């Protein structure tokens, strides 16, 4: 019996309407839950649901801090309802309030947690996710056991909180329950390159390059970054003062 006799030739239209969790291997998955736009059209096009998924674990793998990882999230954080706070859990450095205010966020929206033990940090992350009153949780932790990741991923599903975990590049080959894993690396031009390691859909072969977001600082530099010499060190001068007659 020919196969076409059993199954209709073009089942995609009917099958895909069956359930949102059903998608073809060659196409991007659809996400049932709400998503938040990343603010970059090129990146949105590659993500299921056209944005960062809420209520799910998202892993951002960065080589080190300072390559523009927070600026990547700036648009998404702006899209969240304004009075809801953003929690920074165990960040590597002190967040600068001046920069946060400069990005037109209210300072009262920021909460900085510095737990002393790793267990306390995991506990705090779980409580924040279960509570669900925060817009986003940014969590820096290394090393993390897979069981902890699973637990946090489950806790994240109970709320609509954006949950990002920042981990180093070295864990990119480890298994993770995250629904989205993105590898960040910086270009010498200041642009940010993203490789999507894991998503619901086919693997993303090409890296996505996001231009350095326009900002007051970098928009003033029209030329390519050039090496500028350090300014000369002021030297004290010794001028002989003529003695009065």
């Amino acid at each position: 019996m020919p196969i076409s006799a059993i199954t209709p030739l073009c089942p995609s239209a009917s099958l895909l309407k069956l359930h949102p969790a059903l998608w073809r291997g060659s196409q991007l998955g659809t996400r049932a839950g709400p998503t938040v736009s990343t603010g970059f059209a090129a990146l949105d096009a590659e993500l299921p649901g056209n944005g960062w998924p809420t209520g799910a674990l998202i892993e951002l793998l960065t080589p080190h801090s300072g390559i523009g990882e927070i600026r990547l999230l700036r648009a998404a954080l702006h899209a969240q309802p304004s009075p809801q706070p953003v929690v920074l859990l165990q960040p590597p450095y002190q967040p600068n309030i001046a920069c946060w205010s400069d990005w037109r966020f209210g300072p009262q929206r920021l909460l900085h947690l510095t737990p002393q033990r790793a267990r306390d940090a995991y506990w705090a992350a779980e409580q924040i996710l279960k509570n669900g009153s925060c817009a986003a949780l940014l969590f820096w932790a290394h090393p993390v056991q897979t069981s902890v990741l699973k637990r946090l991923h489950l806790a994240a599903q109970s709320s609509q909180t954006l949950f990002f975990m920042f981990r180093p590049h070295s864990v990119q080959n480890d298994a993770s329950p995250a629904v989205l894993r993105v590898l960040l690396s910086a270009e010498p031009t200041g642009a940010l390159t993203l490789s999507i390691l894991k998503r619901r859909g086919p693997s993303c072969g090409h890296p996505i390059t996001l231009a350095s977001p326009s900002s007051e600082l970098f928009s003033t530099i029209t030329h390519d970054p050039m090496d500028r010499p350090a300014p000369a060190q002021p030297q004290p001068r010794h001028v002989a003062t003529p003695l009065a007659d």
Partner: protein
Amino acid sequence: MRCATVHSLAPECLLYPRDPQAEQNAYVQAAHVALAYSPSVYQHTNATLLIDVTYSLRLFGGIRLIVQGLRQQLKRLKLQVQSSVAPTATGAWLLAQAAQHSAQHFAQRSTQQSAQYSARHSVQHSPRYACGQATLERLLDRLPCAVLPSAQPHLVWLKAIGCETLGGMRALPRNGLQRRVGIALLAELEHAYTQTVWRQAPYLAPEQFIEQLDLLDRLEHTEALASFAERLALRLCTWLAAKQYALRSATLELHHERGRHACPPTTLELAFGEPVWLMAQLMPLLRERLSRQSLVWPVVALTLRSQALAVQSTRSATLFPDPLHAPADYRRLLDLLCARLGADHVLQPAPLADHRPEIANNWAPLDASTVVATSAVGPLTERPFWLLAEPLALSVSDDRPIYYGPLQLLRGPERIESGWWDHLRIARDYFVAQDQQAVRYWIYRERDTEQARWFLHGLFA
């Protein structure tokens, strides 16, 4: 019977001394449970509570649900009750009394509900719900005369004339009965069948909650204490529900050894950013506070006291999560985080109007009194997102700062010179620099020194 006699007759008996205070406490707790369903709760003789639920029927969805709810809550407080329902208060009381007599085991308390309905079936021979007048009369008629308190002196005479039940007593000629037994018995009989209004002052819950729990053993671990504290917290929540109050702060006292080696009690302060009245809101914080407390001496008793109270905010249930209620949840979250991590590790921005970056970027421990100033001095140029707690000295090679490789200067200098009035004077030229991996740094050069000294102060994220 003496204790020795009991032991000789039944050696396996466990004897407990009667504790009137504990009985009274249990009675009051049951009254608090009942107060959540109706304001008209009356304490009656023989450890009985009369609850008038006439005006609560519609709110709670009928007598069946009220009785179920009452029984469940009493069970959580580990109280045993005999309950009954009748259109008259005395009738309900008599039905519960009869059930208690017929059930051979001893029940701690009888709860009777006047004015409307139902109860439980554990004793098959005496159903105790009478939702209508006819059922009530049928059930009461079967009860023995002995259940009426005023019938006690006349029991022998009543038995001699063959009148054993209330129904038999009602059938007797009224005038003759009144002449022989007096008016009190007849009035009581009349109340049981017809009087629906109970004229007594209702029970009022106290304005403050203070309750003590004596532990059976000396406890040295806070984990074990948590389960006992939970029992006290349950009573507190019952009281809060009865008074329609919400709790802002409370104290939990841990009493240590008494007598010769007496130690002062340890006091735990529980302060809630958002008033609480449910176990689910109260217990996580209490548990975290207990687990952080280190015990020096073993604990023999716990006392829970309510301190600051507020009125419960009535919130209507919504189908979808309402962002308006998120701030209350957020304050509860902050309470919980502070309880476990310590207030020093939960930081909120408290920016200061100062040009020195490390002073302007002030993070303060979470405190309700700290007001976040939104209008600090705005920087003229972009600032990095990350600041190092301590500026990091950079080595210099070829007149150029080195940080894992030579740094290119992209922009600068921005001169910040301030603080001559205190001891934190700075004179710096700030630059934006970039390394080979395109990480952008905020570095500065000290202007005071003879040699060019470079420091790393921040990272643009």
